[in-house]
């Protein structure tokens, strides 16, 4: 019964979103206020329908209803409750439903918080979101019904892939999907603006909070995924350039470019056409990610389903939305006159450079990800494109990015001189040099990570310089500067913090270059050492959980010969599905990680691999700092009160 109710709710959501995609557009075109205003209740109604469908699916999982195929394939009665719930989106059908739920949530929040948008514009934005919602609900209803029944019901489910039975599955996909779906909102703003044929600074002001929110969630989602891979897969790596990771990086790069170019639209009314294009592109890349994960066209460690029929459907949706967007763009863009001229060296110029580098990076990652397919198709050649390629090819683009990122925020709008901006960065440059020397003294000569450390410290220093400079530190009394710093717009703080977060993250990545690891087959009492740390195997014993059994090693960590900590890596065996996973033991102090993994046992000896990873935690802390910068910027009063005063507000030209 629950299954049918869920299926019905989905169908209801589909009908409501069809209505949402047509009626408000009609109303806005004909100036019919009632139809225009129908957008909001329709968006809320669609959310209600999709949310109940999702609720029904969750309850089927919790009750372990084995008449539902999705439950049978992905759940098991012995699974802990948390994983029964998160297992809902640990598979293709359920994750698609989560995706659509978040989309409906976003549409409803535009309806709820978009009070400052002109009614017709809001109606058009919601209508575009209605198209996307309707398309993906049709996809679910026609190809991926999560409520499919199976009869007679098997006695129990087949269980969830043990790697997914982790808290990571509770956090990573929802965060990531909010980020992905957020690009649908900026897309809807872009298409609505193209329909109206007008993009002005108010558009930049409306679209920017959504771009920032989507980017912040995407940043967090990617970071959680990377952290999850780090501790769960047991390789001790944090980024593998896997196609699916790249698929999440692509909309992130486009989103980063968009949130920077939207600043220029808002403040200077330049880059308007370009920003609209970026918004279309970001959504296209986010759909491309969905396509890659679900069609099975690429070899990836986390492909979801490889069903060509579904792939073709998503490809069709992708072509429809992106192609339609570009067609509209081609028709309308030439009519949108550029305004706000600027010299190449200026804040605008720096933001254009950001966009140039971000988009070039995206192009390289895009080509690298899809090249095995292209090469096969075009040249009949089988090639692999792996981490060594990406590291080499992105390097020349990342270096200028880090250099320019520091100077950009210090430049004035319209026309600037390069030298004064660079001159103000002397302290940051000195700090970078100091970082280089310290890292050299501790870690020894290792050029790439050393320059990474220098660049990271330079970025953090430059962000501090940005704030100090705005507060007038050195030009006014300390107390006065402090007060001015406190009074700076939150968007300014947000930008500086996000830039510093990039530095923190880079510091962590550079630290990985100094990491060391040892592998040894130990019998109880024997130890393996890295630097001041020594891991002594005390013994290996059996342990058991709700749906697994394991062999767990107890390692005493000695630091300078003194007992320091106990680490217990284990190997888990999941009888349902017959899989083994390694559970790494990690001991962190937020500045370095001790990491231990257990391998196979043979003749009373256990293979133990230990890592010493200086600065590694900063990778994820840095990403969190970046996202915090984004959220801080969202809380800026100027963004919240934005829109209402369309052009008036734009004339203020407040510092950012």
């Amino acid at each position, binding site marked *: 019964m629950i299954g049918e109710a869920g299926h019905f709710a989905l169908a209801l959501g589909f009908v409501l979103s069809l209505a949402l995609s047509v009626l408000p557009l009609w109303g806005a075109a004909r100036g019919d206020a009632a139809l225009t205003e129908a957008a909001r209740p329709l968006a809320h109604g669609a959310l209600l329908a999709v949310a109940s469908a999702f609720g029904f699916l969750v309850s089927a999982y919790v009750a372990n209803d084995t008449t539902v195929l999705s439950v049978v394939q992905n759940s098991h009665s012995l699974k802990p409750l948390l994983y029964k719930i998160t297992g809902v989106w640990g598979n293709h059908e359920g994750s698609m439903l989560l995706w659509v739920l978040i989309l409906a949530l976003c549409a409803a929040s535009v309806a709820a918080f978009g009070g400052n948008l002109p009614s017709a514009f809001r109606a058009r934005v919601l209508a575009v979101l209605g198209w996307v919602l309707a398309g993906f609900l049709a996809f679910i209803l026609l190809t991926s019904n999560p409520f499919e029944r199976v009869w007679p019901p098997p006695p129990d489910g087949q269980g969830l892939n043990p790697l997914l039975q982790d808290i990571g599955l509770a956090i990573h996909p929802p965060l990531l999907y909010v980020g992905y779906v957020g690009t649908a909102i900026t897309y809807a703003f872009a298409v609505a603006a193209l329909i109206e044929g007008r993009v002005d600074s108010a558009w930049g002001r409306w679209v920017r909070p959504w771009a920032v929110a989507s980017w912040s969630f995407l940043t967090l989602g990617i970071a959680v995924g990377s952290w999850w891979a780090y501790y769960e897969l047991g390789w001790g790596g944090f980024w593998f350039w896997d196609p699916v990771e790249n698929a999440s990086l692509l909309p992130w790069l486009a989103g980063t470019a968009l949130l920077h170019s939207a600043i220029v639209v808002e403040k200077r009314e330049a880059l308007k056409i370009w920003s609209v294009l970026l918004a279309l592109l970001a959504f296209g890349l986010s759909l491309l990610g969905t396509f890659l994960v679900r069609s099975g066209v690429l070899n990836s460690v986390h492909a979801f389903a490889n069903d060509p029929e579904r792939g073709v459907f998503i490809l069709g949706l992708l072509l429809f939305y992106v192609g339609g967007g570009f067609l509209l763009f081609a028709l309308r863009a030439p009519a949108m006159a550029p305004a706000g001229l600027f010299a190449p060296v200026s804040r605008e110029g720096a933001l254009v450079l950001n966009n140039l580098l971000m988009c070039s990076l995206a192009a390289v990652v895009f080509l690298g990800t899809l090249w095995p397919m292209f090469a096969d198709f075009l040249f009949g*050649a089988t090639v*692999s494109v792996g981490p*060594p390629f990406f590291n080499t090819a992105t390097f020349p683009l990342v270096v200028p990015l880090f250099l320019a990122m520091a100077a950009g925020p210090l430049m004035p709008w319209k026309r600037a001189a390069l030298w004064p901006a660079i001159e103000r960065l002397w302290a940051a440059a000195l700090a970078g040099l100091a970082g280089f020397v310290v890292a050299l003294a501790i870690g020894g000569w290792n050029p790439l990570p050393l320059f990474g450390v220098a660049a990271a410290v330079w970025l953090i220093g430059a962000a501090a310089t940005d704030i100090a400079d705005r507060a007038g530190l050195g030009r006014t009394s300390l107390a006065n500067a402090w007060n001015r710093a406190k009074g700076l717009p939150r968007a300014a703080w947000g930008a500086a913090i996000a830039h510093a977060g990039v530095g923190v993250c880079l510091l962590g990545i550079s630290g990985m270059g100094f990491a060391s690891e040892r592998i*040894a087959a130990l019998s109880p009492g024997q130890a393996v050492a890295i630097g001041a740390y020594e891991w002594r195997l005390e013994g290996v014993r059996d342990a058991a959980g709700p749906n697994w059994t394991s062999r767990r090693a107890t390692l005493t960590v000695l630091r300078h010969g003194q007992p320091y900590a106990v680490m217990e890596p284990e190997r888990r065996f999941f009888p349902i599905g017959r899989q083994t996973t390694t559970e790494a033991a990690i001991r962190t102090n937020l500045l370095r990680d001790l990491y231990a993994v257990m391998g*196979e046992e043979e003749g009373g000896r256990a293979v133990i691999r230990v890592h010493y990873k200086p600065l590694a935690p900063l990778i994820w802390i840095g990403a969190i700092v970046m996202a915090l910068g984004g959220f801080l910027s969202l809380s800026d009063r100027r963004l919240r009160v934005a829109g209402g005063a369309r052009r008036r507000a734009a004339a203020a030209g407040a510092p950012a």
Partner: protein
Amino acid sequence: MRRAALPAALAAALLLAPPGAGAVGNPADMLPDPAQEARARAIGRELRCLVCQNESIEDSNADLARDLRLLVRERIRAGDSDAEVIAFLRARYGDFVLLRPPFTAATAALWLSPALALAGGVLAIWLVRRRGGAAPAAPAPLSPEEQARLAALEGEARR
């Protein structure tokens, strides 16, 4: 762990299950000389485990990956240079084994993509600016009303 030993076709059908536990490795397989072992690892990270999804032979648990790890170490012990080891494996398994694709006709555009993207972007910016420069969009001078408002706003900003 046994999963990795499945034939490639079956492994591909099991896509839903990621490769599972990372290779912990066997110390017995390692070279006694740490410098040689470090070289073997660096080489191993450039080579693809042919039956896996995008994993290097150093990261993979598959039996084939282990065979390749041992092969690399054997070549190193035999005195091959890094390039010779890689060439040996390439001759045996083709370009597919290289995670860093060689520069050939089929990958030229890929390797040149950073330069092409940058050059294309710069060209586009230059074209747009040239066109924009031809069409003067100089801002109109402020009206007295706007100037008054600007003065008021500036006063507010200084406060």
